[in-house]
C-alpha cells in the first residue's frame, strides 16, 4: 500500500466530514483513526473506493466518539442528515483546510504541526519524531492549536501568504527521523498549487524543487556540508530541476513577482550553470536587487554581497557588506569568504573561527571550523 497516496486523501476526507457538520477538532481525530485503520486493513483487503472507505470509517469513528458525551441529541440530528452511502461528493475543501491550519491566530510551530497532521495526514508520533520533541508535547501542541482555531469559520477566505510561510518552514526543517519533511513540504505545496492558481505558490514549489534537486550533492559521505561551488553537479536531480524551472517560468510570465519567485529565479540560475565558474552572477545580483526591493531584508542584502563579490570582485563584495550590521546571522562567514578571495588569509581565518562560534547548526559549525583550519595551515606553511 502506498502510504503517501493514502495520506493525500486526508484533506479531502476531512473537508467532507466538516461539511457534514462535524466540528473540526473531532473530525480531525476521526480521520486520523481512519488512516490508522486503513494502514491496518488495506494491505489484505484493499477497498475499491479508497476515499469513500475513509469517509465512511471516519464518519463512524466521529459518531462513536461523540456518542458518549452530552452532544447526543445533536449527533442524532447529524445521523438524520447523513447522506446515503455512495461515491463521496466532489467538493474539495483542501484549500480551506490549508487556510485554517495556517490561521494567523496560530504560532508558527502550532501551524506547522497542525498542517502536517490535518492536511498531511502524518501521525502525532511521526511529527514529534521529525521535530525531536516528546510525543506528548506534540499531542498537546496539536490539541491546543485545534482549540485555537475552533471558532474560525471554515468557509472564510484565508491568506495564501501565511500558508506559504508554514510550508516554507516545513521544507527548511529538512530531514530528521523517519519522515522526510522536505519531501512532505513539496508534496503539500504541490497539492496546494493544484487547489489554487497563484504565482507565489508556484514560486515556492519551484524554489523547493530546485533546492531539493541538490540534496544528494550537499552532503559528503562523512556527513559534512559541501558548499554549492564544490558540489558534484552530476549528482543534481535534473528531473526536479527541469520541473522547477518550468513551473517558475510559467509563474514569472504572469508578471506578478513575489519573493518566492525571485528566490526560485536565483536557485534556477545556479541550477543552470554546468560548472560553478559558469554561474551568471550578474543576473543573480539583479535578482537579489529585486528581492531586496520586495522584502527589504538585511539577510537578502548579506547574500547579495556574496553575489556582488562574484560578479564584480571581492572588493566590490566587501563594499556591499560594509553597510550591514555585523551581528546579522552569517555576517562573519560572508566576510571571511570575501576576505579570502581578496587575498587576506589572516583576516579570513580569524573571521571563519569567529563564524564557527556563532554557527546555528553543527554541520555549518564544522564546515566553518575546517575553513579556519585550512587557512591557518596554509599560512603556517
Amino acid at each position, binding site marked *: 500500500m502506498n502510504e503517501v497516496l493514502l495520506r493525500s486523501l486526508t484533506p479531502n476526507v476531512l473537508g467532507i466530514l466538516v461539511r457534514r457538520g462535524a466540528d473540526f477538532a473531532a473530525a480531525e481525530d476521526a480521520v486520523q483513526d481512519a488512516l490508522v485503520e486503513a494502514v491496518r486493513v488495506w494491505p489484505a483487503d484493499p477497498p475499491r473506493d479508497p476515499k469513500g472507505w475513509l469517509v465512511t470509517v471516519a464518519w463512524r469513528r466521529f459518531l462513536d466518539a461523540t456518542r458518549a458525551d452530552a452532544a447526543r441529541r445533536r449527533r442524532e440530528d447529524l445521523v438524520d442528515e447523513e447522506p446515503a452511502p455512495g461515491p463521496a461528493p466532489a467538493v474539495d475543501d483542501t484549500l480551506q483546510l490549508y487556510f485554517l491550519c495556517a490561521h494567523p491566530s496560530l504560532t508558527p510551530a502550532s501551524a506547522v504541526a497542525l498542517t502536517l497532521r490535518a492536511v498531511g495526514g502524518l501521525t502525532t508520533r511521526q511529527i514529534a519524531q521529525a521535530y525531536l520533541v516528546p510525543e506528548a508535547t506534540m499531542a498537546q501542541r496539536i490539541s491546543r492549536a485545534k482549540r485555537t482555531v475552533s471558532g474560525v469559520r471554515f468557509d472564510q477566505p484565508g491568506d495564501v501568504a501565511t500558508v506559504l510561510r508554514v510550508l516554507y518552514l516545513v521544507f527548511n526543517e529538512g530531514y530528521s527521523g523517519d519522515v522526510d519533511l522536505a519531501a512532505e513540504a513539496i508534496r503539500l505545496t504541490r497539492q496546494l498549487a493544484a487547489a489554487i492558481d497563484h504565482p507565489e505558490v508556484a514560486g515556492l514549489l519551484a524554489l523547493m524543487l530546485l533546492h531539493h534537486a541538490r540534496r544528494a550533492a550537499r552532503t559528503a559521505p*562523512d*556527513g*559534512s556540508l559541501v558548499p554549492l561551488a564544490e558540489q558534484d553537479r552530476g549528482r543534481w536531480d535534473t528531473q526536479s530541476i527541469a520541473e522547477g524551472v518550468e513551473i517558475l517560468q510559467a509563474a514569472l510570465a504572469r508578471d506578478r513577482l513575489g519573493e518566492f519567485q525571485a528566490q526560485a529565479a536565483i536557485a534556477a540560475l545556479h541550477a543552470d550553470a554546468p560548472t560553478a565558474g559558469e554561474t551568471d552572477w550578474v543576473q543573480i545580483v539583479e535578482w537579489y536587487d529585486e528581492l531586496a526591493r520586495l522584502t527589504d531584508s538585511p539577510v537578502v542584502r548579506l547574500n547579495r554581497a556574496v553575489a556582488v563579490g562574484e560578479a564584480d570582485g571581492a572588493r566590490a563584495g566587501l563594499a556591499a557588506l560594509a553597510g550591514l550590521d555585523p551581528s546579522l546571522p552569517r555576517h562573519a562567514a560572508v566576510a571571511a569568504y570575501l576576505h579570502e578571495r581578496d587575498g587576506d588569509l589572516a583576516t579570513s*581565518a580569524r573571521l*571563519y*573561527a569567529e563564524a*564557527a*562560534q*556563532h*554557527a*546555528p547548526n*553543527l554541520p555549518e559549525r*564544522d564546515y566553518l*571550523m*575546517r575553513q*579556519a*583550519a*585550512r587557512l*591557518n*595551515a596554509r599560512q603556517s606553511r
Partner: protein
Amino acid sequence: MAKYLLLKHYRGAPAAVNDVPMDRWTPEEISAHMQYMHDFAARLEETGEFVDGQALAPEGTFVRYDGEGRPPVTDGPFAETKDLIAGWMVIDVDSYERAIELAGDLSAAPGAGGKPIHEWLEVRPFLTAPPTITE
C-alpha cells in the same frame, strides 16, 4: 541501569593535555575527530546505552525574575572566566565503572596531530525516581 550525564566544557574544566584550539588543527584532523565522535555515539546506540547527545552554542545569558510587572533581568554574555558547557551525552549504563570507562573513551577523541585530546569530561549521575521496594 543508571543514567549519567557526560558533560563537556568550553571553559571551566582543567586544561586538556592536547589543548590546541580546533581552528589550529588541519582539516583532516577535524574530520578524524568528527568521525570518532560519530562512531562513539553509534557504538553506544548498538550496545543500548545511548540516550541523548546535544551540542550547545557558546553564547548564553543569565536571566532572573525581577518582580511583578517587570521584564526579567538578563546578564551576559558571560565573562571569560565563566564555566561554559559545550554539550553533553546522556548514557544509561549498568554501573558507575562503565560510565567512567565510556567517559575515558570519549576523552580519547583525536585532536591536533591526530593524538588524543585527553579532555576532562564531567560525569554526573542522574537522581532517579524512588524505588518501589523500600525495605
